[in-house]
């Protein structure tokens, strides 16, 4: 009897301890296996990473364990896994901007300054700036995705617009023409907030001088009047009824009634978006083929704005390395940057590669136009909310939504960003 009791107690304790122990770190790192986290969970993108990992294994004998994590979950999972770098992934998609900075400060990202290959240094010089903090490199970029306005050529023609607008006042008169022709001018995914935020980011990039913009993003100093001016420009668009009806409850990318869906189905004439737009629109057209009359033009200049002409804003996606990862992980990110891989990447994701020598492989007309716009501008700014970091970026996006729903003024956006500093 007694023996049984003791045995049962031991078993119970073992079970409980076993339960609590799960989730602790895996055993010592294996030099010939690396774990790799990315966010392409479907389609050609997912296939690309699998093929590339196989090629890397063939070349070096290092096995790559891939985990594809849904984009919206990515940040949360990465943050949790990196609490203990020894159990985190060896190579992971960098979050960019202030979030990457936070990870660097927490010692969760490897300094790659002396480890990147010459290919990365020479061919990716421009994109590399997005991963450089205090003159040190913390990631290898794979793609640059500047934004701009995507439009339906047919609808523009219907409204009698012959040339795409190059200034803000031209844009406004085109909006009026579209409205008069019974066409919704701009599709806006207000429910997700960031697409609404983008209008404000671009307008401030045009309104603010390079110095004032840098001061705002880097030092969180929004005292320059250009920040309020940008919000007033946005208010003008709102007042002239430029956005689709019910834009506050429109999502960005989900289904035919989303903003991308409205553009894809010719229910609205334009949308301000990143380079990923053709891919998203393709899935939302009635027959799931590329939208034939999709066009692109750069964000117009604002009359009297102090911003650099043709300045671009966008995302640079890249990969960082865990500070405790083996040498193979560094080889892997350098391997990503090689010309062949970059060309295949650009094809698989229908995007622009970070490597300049691979850019010639882009055949899509719209993407070619963006590449041309890139050669006209010195630098590409990161999306403003990314650059400002989650805290202030979140407040900025909320402020823009408030303005668009008629519950805030231009000055409130700036105030919301200042208030946010108290929370983080």
């Amino acid at each position, binding site marked *: 009897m007694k023996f049984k009791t003791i045995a049962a107690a031991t078993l119970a304790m073992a079970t409980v301890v076993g339960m609590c122990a799960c989730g602790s770190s895996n055993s010592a790192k294996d030099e010939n296996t690396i774990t790799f986290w990315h966010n392409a969970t479907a389609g050609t993108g997912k296939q690309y990473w699998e093929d590339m990992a196989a090629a890397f294994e063939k070349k070096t004998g290092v096995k790559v364990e891939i985990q594809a994590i849904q984009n919206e979950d990515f940040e949360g999972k990465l943050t949790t896994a990196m609490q203990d770098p020894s159990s985190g992934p060896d190579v992971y998609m960098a979050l960019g901007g202030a979030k990457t900075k936070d990870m660097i400060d927490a010692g969760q990202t490897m300094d790659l300054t002396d480890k990147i290959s010459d290919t990365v240094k020479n061919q990716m010089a421009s994109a590399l700036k997005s991963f450089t903090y205090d003159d040190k490199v913390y990631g290898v970029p794979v793609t640059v995705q500047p934004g701009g306005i995507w439009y339906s050529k047919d609808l523009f023609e219907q409204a009698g617009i012959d040339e795409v607008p190059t200034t803000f006042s031209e844009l406004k008169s085109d909006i009026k023409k579209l409205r008069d022709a019974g066409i919704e001018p701009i599709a806006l995914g207000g429910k997700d907030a960031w697409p609404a935020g983008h209008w404000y980011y671009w307008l401030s990039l045009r309104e603010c001088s390079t110095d004032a913009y840098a001061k705002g993003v880097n030092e969180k100093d929004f005292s320059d009047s250009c920040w309020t001016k940008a919000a007033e420009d946005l208010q003008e668009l709102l007042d002239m009824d430029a956005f689709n009806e019910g834009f506050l409850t429109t999502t960005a990318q989900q289904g035919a*009634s989303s903003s991308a869906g409205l553009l894809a189905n010719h229910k609205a004439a334009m949308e301000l978006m990143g380079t990923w737009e053709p891919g998203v629109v393709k899935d939302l057209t009635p027959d799931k083929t590329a939208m034939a009359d999709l066009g692109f033009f750069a964000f117009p200049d604002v009359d009297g704005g102090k911003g650099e002409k043709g300045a671009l804003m966008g995302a640079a996606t890249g990969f960082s390395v865990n500070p405790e990862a083996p040498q193979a992980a560094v080889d892997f990110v350098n391997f990503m940057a090689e010309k062949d891989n970059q060309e295949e990447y650009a094809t698989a994701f229908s995007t622009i590669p970070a490597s300049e020598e691979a850019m010639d492989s882009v055949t899509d007309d719209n993407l070619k136009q963006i590449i041309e716009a890139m050669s006209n501008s010195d630098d590409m700014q990161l999306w403003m909310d990314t650059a400002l970091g989650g805290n202030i970026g979140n407040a900025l996006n909320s402020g823009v939504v408030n303005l668009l729903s008629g519950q805030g003024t231009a000055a409130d956006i700036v105030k919301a960003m200042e208030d946010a500093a108290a929370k983080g």
Partner: protein
Amino acid sequence: MATQNNNGATPQARRVKSMSDGKARRNIEIFILSAPAILLFACFVILPIILGAYYGFYQWKGYGSPSQTGKFVGFQNYVTALKDPSFQAAILHTFEVVIGSLVIQAPLAILFALLLNQKFKGRGLIRTLIFVPYVVSEVIVGTGWSLLLQKKGAINEILANFGVDGPDWLADPKIAMFTLLLLISWKYIGFAVILMLAGMQSIPEELYEAARVDGAGFWQMQKSITLPLLAPTLRIWVFLSVIGSLQLFDLVYIVWGKYVSTTAGVSTMATYMVREGRGAGNYGYGSAVALIIFVISLVIALTYQKYVLNRDLDGAVTEQKEAKKRTAKRAKEARRLEAAATASEVK
């Protein structure tokens, strides 16, 4: 002494020993059987609460440990949260939902249950139909309704056929709260009805028969028999409904999103926490908000238990004393009966 004990303990002593043996064994058994549950509870409920309170003292981005990468700010996060007008608005909205769901759902559920308690053709089908929304997952319900209720969604298209210009059901702050209450009622009324129905069926049929003999009408019977005897069920349902409303998150998050819910006036405590905590990457601040929500919910739950539910829950935390009293009374009663029985035997 020891020798004597070993050799020939008196029957009395042996009994004491085996009794204490039994007691120890029972304690071990209790320990073994409850240890896993207690450990799980401690690991996944108590510990997170303590950690949340601890994180709440830091300005912390979630990278590394708060003591290294965060900044200790004392109670500042808690103060900022309580002073934030948009959190105050979220608390107000949550309480509007708590009250609104009770006021709308209780009478409706009782009426439906009364109806479904009668015998008629197709009763089983209607019972199933009314319960279906409750079974469907929140995400599906939310996605469906958010598409239907858009400014240019199906519902407004139908209204347009009748020449009615439908309102913006979701984004207009004047009507968004009513839309939300409508959705909640539609989704959760099935649960309330099933609960009430079960309560009604546990009422003995004889009572109604007796009332009928006395000449009571249908409504009088419901008023004097059904409602009073349904009270315990109603009290439990109110408790579950209040707790559910306090935690309301998924429906609002999916239908409105974390930003528009604020401008439309339907943000809840939980959507605020997600927006300002996880959305903004302020894990310290978010933890402080989480703790405030926990305290609010706990106070409400305990108050309700103490003043309302104590009649139904034997041995609930808040009324251990009364339970003890009742046990003592019961024991006394038993002794009295036993004594009476012995007495009658003697006679």
